[in-house]
């Protein structure tokens, strides 16, 4: 396996649109097709498609928005996205997905939202889950909702994007 030194290789790899990325979730090593992160809605895991149907209200914050594959379908809402990778932030900005370039574990956006999305295992962005959930509670409006999807990713996923 070729190792590439890059201070944010995940963002770099995703921006290339093809290849295989290896990540570790818990104790499992997972190989994922980069194309998975660009997949259109019909190729998403079923739970992610259902998650978007659970949105109520008008404002949404998509945390760890990545390539914007979810957010791109939410443009009709008052949408904001968060990404800590400058490369991915630029992709989100070009797609007009109202991104904040911040690390949610260290900073937070200035306003509250009716929906906060933590899709595609982003609940595991930090090992300080409790602190993250406390912070997100402060970012939710009264009766706002946190929508979480965690996928089992112990198999290589290859997804067509065309």
């Amino acid at each position, binding site marked *: 396996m070729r190792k590439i030194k890059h201070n944010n290789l995940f963002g770099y790899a995703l921006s290339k649109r093809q290849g295989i*990325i290896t990540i570790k979730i818990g104790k499992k090593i997972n190989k994922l097709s980069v194309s998975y992160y660009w997949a259109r809605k019909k190729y998403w895991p079923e739970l992610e498609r259902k998650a978007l149907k659970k949105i109520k209200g008008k404002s949404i914050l998509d945390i760890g928005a990545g390539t914007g594959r979810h957010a791109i379908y939410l443009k009709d809402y008052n949408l904001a996205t968060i990404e800590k990778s400058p490369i991915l932030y630029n992709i989100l900005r070009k797609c007009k997905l109202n991104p904040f370039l911040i690390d949610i574990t260290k900073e937070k956006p200035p306003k509250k939202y009716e929906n906060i999305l933590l899709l595609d295992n982003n609940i595991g962005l930090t090992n300080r*889950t409790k602190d993250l959930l406390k912070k997100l509670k402060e970012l939710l409006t009264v009766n706002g909702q946190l929508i979480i999807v965690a996928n089992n990713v112990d198999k290589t996923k290859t997804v067509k994007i065309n």
Partner: protein
Amino acid sequence: MKNYYQNIKWTYINKTDLIKLLITLGYKIDYLESTNKGYLIVAKN
């Protein structure tokens, strides 16, 4: 096909532990669906 490797460590938290944590923090579980492919949780403030 190019392989990218980075020691990205995502924390794995199982559904049961996450639900307990959410409830402890004052969230209300509004919807839960669990399959062999993963889980979906909607937790209200």
